[in-house]
């Protein structure tokens, strides 16, 4: 079953629950195994959290919205994130070393563990950043 759905959210921590609800609804339509579904929901929520936490670092509140687009075609899941936060320098997106036990720095690690690829694209018409996560399912 091929599918493509998108939704936009206010850039705010309170939107993260809505992001998870949207993602679960889409993955329910795809009848994904529950463990895979929850892994994908975590990856999506971490990427959305990165937008709120890093893309809008130092911004108390904003009316900006971010868009998440989930597509499945020919067994390849593609999840796009569009935002108007600070421009991301992909080379600077690093997770902490796992043996350096301290709070923070795990979101990007989780995304890399769960997804096959995470790439910032340069085709972000009208947006500042366009992150694409992909996974063969």
């Amino acid at each position, binding site marked *: 079953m091929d599918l493509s759905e998108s939704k936009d959210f206010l850039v705010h921590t309170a939107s993260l629950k809505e992001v998870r609800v949207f993602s679960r609804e889409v993955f329910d339509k795809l009848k994904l195994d529950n463990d895979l579904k929850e892994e994908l929901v975590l990856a999506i929520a971490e990427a959305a959290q990165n937008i709120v*936490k890093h893309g809008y670092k130092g911004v108390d509140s904003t009316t900006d919205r971010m868009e998440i687009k989930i597509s499945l075609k020919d067994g390849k899941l593609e999840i796009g994130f569009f935002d108007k936060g600070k421009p991301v320098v992909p080379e600077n997106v690093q997770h902490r070393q796992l043996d350096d036990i301290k709070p923070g720095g795990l979101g990007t690690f989780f995304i890399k563990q769960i997804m096959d690829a995470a790439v910032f694209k340069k085709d972000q018409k009208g947006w500042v950043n366009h992150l694409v996560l992909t996974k063969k399912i």
Partner: protein
Amino acid sequence: MSYKVTEEGNVATIHLDGEIDMDVTEKAKEVILPIVESGKEVHLNLSQVQYMDSSGISVLIESHQKALENNTKVVVKEVSKSVLKVIMMAKLEQILNLE
């Protein structure tokens, strides 16, 4: 997220309920850290927590480290399968006191 705290002797049990994400981590820390800093042993019961992201994991790490500083410990109890999976993904199952 909601919570309930019960105390018996030097042990405080904190039952967390709901999904632990970046939106509620400050609230979780406000509940947990003062009790840890008081020197009590803290038992975090996560049986009603079905989702935890990296922010929630950070709260567990910070609580654990704060406990070590205060010569006490945080025991993480009744972890749901989904949360355990995230803890294991972070390779923290040998670091945190899981029961």
